[in-house]
């Protein structure tokens, strides 16, 4: 399964030149600044924007090329709009059933009750859109899109119009979606925090062009890309809850490189989790550190060392158990420890954030 795009669109003030392929699984973040063309790309995929010179192919099926243009309603996709988009003349149930009713029963893969449960809408079915909070509306909009049993789900900054509390209310639902349904999702965002939390891949868009594409681990830490140089730059690791330690109030997360201790969580052992380690919270030692208060120490090997935005600092990418870890250290320390590609060392992680 895959989606292949080739879009060339030019306006006097804006040019879009996107040629890329999206993987057929997981969540791909289409990431970039406001105005870089993310939404236009998404609308082209959906057929809401009809760009003359574009080709869109999904799973070997042509959605658009020189001669053909499959209208939106015939494309098996779901779309969640940036702002709330519930039909005002229907209640929540009516909104949910609108798409469901138009999909032949044989093609339905997600049932009404299932979608309602995923998004936690049981108590809202008879409400009208204007009675719902922003977060509730987006949950209904997501469930409504899911009920068309889409083969591809497109989400255009679904959280950007919401306050912080509502975002926190939706993100766990999105993570669940990701874990339990095998629908590929293209998720437009300009919030790196959101992307770090849910994405598997990142397509980085800059001024109407694809700057780079890759797995989230690679894209967050590649020194030639701006993501590694953000103030909140860091790396993420996917693991499972391995053990709880009630005495010290800790939970252990097993990742490829070893174990990471985090504050005790209620999550059951075996549950898949994602943790984030900020580059500024990592310090480096050449010897196995002893007599230190730092609990989380991961052995690794330096991949590369590059200049950071602040000339006093350098960015070190370290291979720990096959995944890149980003560390931001002072230029002086880098020189004193002679940190260079290939050097084996120990990364001391001061803080690990569980992303939930």
């Amino acid at each position, binding site marked *: 399964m895959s989606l292949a795009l080739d879009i060339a669109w030019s306006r006097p003030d804006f040019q879009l030149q996107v040629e890329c392929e999206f993987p057929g699984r997981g969540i791909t973040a289409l990431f970039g600044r406001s105005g870089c063309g993310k939404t236009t790309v998404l609308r082209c995929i959906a*057929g809401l924007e009809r760009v003359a010179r574009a080709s869109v192919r999904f799973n070997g099926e042509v959605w658009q090329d020189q001669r053909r243009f499959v*209208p939106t309603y015939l494309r098996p996709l*779901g*779309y969640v709009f940036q702002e709330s988009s519930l*039909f005002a003349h229907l209640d929540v149930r009516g909104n949910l059933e*609108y*798409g469901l009713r138009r999909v032949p029963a044989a093609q339905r893969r997600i049932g009404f009750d299932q979608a309602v449960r995923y998004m936690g809408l049981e108590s809202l079915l008879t409400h009208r*859109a204007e009675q719902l909070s922003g977060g509730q509306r987006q949950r209904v909009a997501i469930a409504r899109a899911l009920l068309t049993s889409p083969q591809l789900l497109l989400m255009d900054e679904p959280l950007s119009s919401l306050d912080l509390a509502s975002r926190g209310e939706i993100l766990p639902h999105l993570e669940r979606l990701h874990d339990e349904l095998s629908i590929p999702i293209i998720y437009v965002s300009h919030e790196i925090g959101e992307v770090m939390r849910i994405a598997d891949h990142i397509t980085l868009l800059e001024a109407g062009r694809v700057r780079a594409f890759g797995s989230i681990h690679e894209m967050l830490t590649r020194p030639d890309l701006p993501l590694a140089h953000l103030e909140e730059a860091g790396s993420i690791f996917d693991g499972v809850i391995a053990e709880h330690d009630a005495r010290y109030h800790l939970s252990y997360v097993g990742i490829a490189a070893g174990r990471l201790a985090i504050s005790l969580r209620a999550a059951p052992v075996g549950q898949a989790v994602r943790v984030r380690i900020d580059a500024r919270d990592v310090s480096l030692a050449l010897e196995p550190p002893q007599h230190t208060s730092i609990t989380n120490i991961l052995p690794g090997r330096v991949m590369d060392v590059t200049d950071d935005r602040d000339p006093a600092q350098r960015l070190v990418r370290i291979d720990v158990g096959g995944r890149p870890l980003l560390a931001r250290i002072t230029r002086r320390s880098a020189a004193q420890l002679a940190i260079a590609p290939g050097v084996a060392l120990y990364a001391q992680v001061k803080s690990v954030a569980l992303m939930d």
Partner: protein
Amino acid sequence: MIESFYSPDDLVALWISLKLATLTVALLLLLCTPLAWWLATTRSRLRVVGEAMAALPLVLPPTVLGFYLLLFLGPYGWGGRLMHHLGLQPLSFSFGGLVIGSMLYSMPFVIQPLQGAFQAVGARALEVAATLRAPPWDRFFTVAVPLARRGFITGSVLAFAHTLGEFGVVLMLGGNIPGRTQTASIVIFNHVEALDYSGAQRLSITLLVACFILLLIVYGANRHRAEVAAVA
């Protein structure tokens, strides 16, 4: 009781007015819905021409409209000759002619509220419907029409009331023929000419009350207009 209040001629005239207004509204809804949709959604430069033409009956003296319709629909006009070729009677001085005249005269009262209502529905709601697998006709009937229902109510009621009260076009085109083209508003004029003020009073108060109730319906339906949004 009704028979004791109205004369038989009054009742016939009221019935003709009612029939005329109902038929006019029904035909206008059929005709104006696609027209208003086009005006609301087109990016063509012809839109302003369409809008001006649709608003023309608002400012045109009814006698002017009636006069040209009389020329057009009469036995020597294009419309009349067309009817002749089809083996039909000309529409001037007939109920059919009145319907055509009323439709033209009341058209702006249907088009303008409908156009406004369709514009308020906006592109987003229809895009959402498209992503939910609804083909164009389906989107129109299940999203645009229900969301524009206040426009339909307002347009229907205004056109109905406006047709009830129409005088100039009806007189020019219909010719004041009792039982065929003589509407209530014309009978009022006849009563006054005959100095039968109480007869005029009976029909006038009837139309006054009817129109007031109809307007109550319109304003009642539009009470929550400020809250109306297509997508929320």
